[in-house]
């Protein structure tokens, strides 16, 4: 048997030279006349160790990283194919503390399996959930998802089962499953990692959703910034179709579900569900007023389930292992696990899937290892560009949807961006308004105009022009945007702005005691 070597084809690993490493391994093996099989997995989510090369020795995977192409001859010299010692040796992959302490349910296979091998997927428990869904009545599948406590992982945290129930209850000739893969929040990459590392999991989740609500057609709305994920998904869909995991006869059940990838075009707002529908219909990505709910009148006017990638990818586990298994993770009304994404200024960045209830401090220090720069962590933006900046005094609040809402923050899609003490929070507040101005769809006035006025007001505050009045104006403007915007874009841009001002007032030239 030839030796199995894993080199990720995750775009983060590729961005650090994984392709060159794979080529160097192939070339060095050929030069030495050693037979190796190079398999292409996703990333384990330990990006400070990427490119992470793994060798299967005696049925166990041993890790080496971060490996550059120049390290490859030395690794062969150290007999890494038999697990030899080397300065880059990390021991057994599963025992690396960052990974060993996680609750990997949705990401159980990511980085482990060959991303495009159905055989690998099945060998690691794939399609068990779909097989069970085929045996159940649609209402039973929906109940299982409802009972699991799964809430929308895109950010809004709406109960997934209730959304599915609405679509199931709405009679129509044609219903749709629309997967929101427009992962635009800075600091988030879990959708991308899953699509690149375990695409069949998303396909299976969508097929189960289709069976549950009676939809035969699905769309994955993928952002155009993800060219690697696009290629992986297209290849996986083709492969699944060939062997009947998609198509007119799902696993021989006689029931149909097929899906298609549609590319976005660089508009952040298309991550808002109704703007995404407009875009899928070939229009400008303008937000729709609700009602009607997309579950009743969605894509092309038909009942549509819209779920984020991680929500849908959580479903196969729920069906395979039961609602109770999933619900047993988590706290309060936040059940199950969330793949947190550690980004920005941290020593160990990457993906940490854990049950809800972990604190930011644990994530930043126990997992993240503190700042990359070695300076104190001063502010952390949780939940993307519309999420609040969290100061150190709140690092011990458990990450749970309700606890975060209570402190005026949100968990969103689980992105965590750390900043050290060199950050200027007035600039970050200005950026939040600037970003809203660039990305606003323009339909509602508070967002379209308010964001531009917001940049101007913050500029005047920074410049010290009539600061007291400008602060009152900013406060009033934020009220208007929060209360009067049609969607979260304008409605939540005040979150980063207000939290920056509240907790980091001196950056705005404001005496901390005067801040709103």
């Amino acid at each position, binding site marked *: 048997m030839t030796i199995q070597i894993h080199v990720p084809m995750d775009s983060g690993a590729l*961005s*650090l030279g994984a392709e060159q490493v794979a080529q160097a391994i192939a070339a060095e093996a050929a030069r030495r006349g050693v037979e190796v099989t190079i398999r292409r997995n996703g990333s384990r989510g330990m990006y400070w160790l990427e490119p992470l090369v793994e060798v299967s020795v005696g049925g166990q995977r041993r890790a080496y990283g971060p490996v550059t192409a120049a390290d490859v001859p030395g690794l062969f010299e150290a007999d890494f194919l038999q697990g030899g010692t080397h300065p880059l040796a990390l021991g057994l992959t599963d025992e690396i503390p960052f990974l060993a302490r996680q609750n990997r349910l949705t990401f159980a296979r990511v980085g482990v399996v060959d991303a495009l091998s159905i055989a690998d997927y099945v060998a690691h428990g794939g399609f068990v959930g779909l097989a069970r869904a085929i045996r159940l009545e649609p209402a039973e599948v929906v109940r299982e998802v409802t009972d699991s406590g799964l809430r929308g992982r895109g950010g809004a945290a709406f109960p997934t089962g209730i959304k599915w129930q609405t679509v199931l209850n709405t009679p129509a000739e044609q219903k749709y499953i629309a997967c929101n893969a427009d992962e635009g929040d800075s600091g988030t*990459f879990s959708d991308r990692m899953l699509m690149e590392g375990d695409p069949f999991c998303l396909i299976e989740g969508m097929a189960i959703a289709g069976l549950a609500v009676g939809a035969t057609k699905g769309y994955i709305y993928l952002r155009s910034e993800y060219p690697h994920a696009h290629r992986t998904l297209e290849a996986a869909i083709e492969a699944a179709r060939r062997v009947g995991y998609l198509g007119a006869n799902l696993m021989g059940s006689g029931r149909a579900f097929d899906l298609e990838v549609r590319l976005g*075009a660089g508009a952040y707002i298309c991550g808002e569900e109704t703007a995404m529908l407009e875009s899928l*219909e070939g229009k400008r990505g303008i937000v729709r007023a609700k009602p009607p709910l997309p579950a009743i009148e969605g894509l092309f006017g038909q009942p549509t389930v819209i779920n984020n990638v991680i929500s849908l990818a959580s479903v196969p586990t729920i069906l395979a292992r039961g609602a109770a298994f999933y619900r047993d993770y988590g706290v309060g009304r936040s059940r199950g696990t969330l793949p947190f994404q550690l980004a*920005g200024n941290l020593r160990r*960045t*990457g*993906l940490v899937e854990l049950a809800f209830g972990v604190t930011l401090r644990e994530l930043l220090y126990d997992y993240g290892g503190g700042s990359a720069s070695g300076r104190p962590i001063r502010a952390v933006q949780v939940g993307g560009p519309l999420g609040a900046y969290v100061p150190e005094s709140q690092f011990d609040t458990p990450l749970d949807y309700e606890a975060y809402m209570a402190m005026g923050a949100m968990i969103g899609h689980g992105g965590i*961006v750390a900043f050290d003490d060199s950050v200027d929070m007035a600039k970050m507040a200005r950026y939040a308004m600037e970003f809203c101005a660039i990305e606003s769809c323009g339909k509602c006035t508070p967002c379209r105009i308010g964001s531009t006025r917001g940049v101007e007001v913050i500029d005047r505050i920074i410049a010290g022009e009539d600061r007291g009045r400008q602060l009152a104006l900013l406060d009033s403007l934020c009220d208007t945007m929060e209360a009067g915007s049609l969607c979260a874009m304008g409605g939540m841009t005040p979150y980063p702005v207000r939290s920056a001002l509240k907790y980091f007032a001196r950056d705005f030239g404001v005496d901390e005691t005067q801040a709103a």
Partner: protein
Amino acid sequence: MDEARDKQIIQREIEAHRAMPGALLPILHAIQDALGWIPPQATPALAQALNRSRAEVHGVISFYHHFRTTPPGRHVVQVCRAESCQAMGGAALEAHAQAALGTAFGETTADGAITLEAVYCLGNCACSPAVRVDDDIVGRVSSARFDEIVATLRGEQVSA
């Protein structure tokens, strides 16, 4: 620009995709993938084929940042401006990129080699700051690394 050739490609992509529900974005992507941009003559052709007004088609093209209405340079380099990259020195990289290339975001270098664009998140936030070079993502980009990338794109010798 060879307008006759462009016209052929535009027609080819319209025919290949027009039957899809919501065909406009897939057609625009196909045209831009083939030509590098969306030439002005595409607007009336698309309006006619999809039975929509020219204003509507223009509205869609201009709404999305991805679609270009001027031809790009031989390569497109996008520098991420979003928060995670800012936390890792992204602002300095933005300034360096514009100074090194002598262009602002949205412009093309005088030699036609590189179009520089701003982008808001490449999903490579664990390896910030990030840059996209055509269809490749590059992580942890320092100013020196940026200069190497540019030199490679221009086919120059990379200095040691």
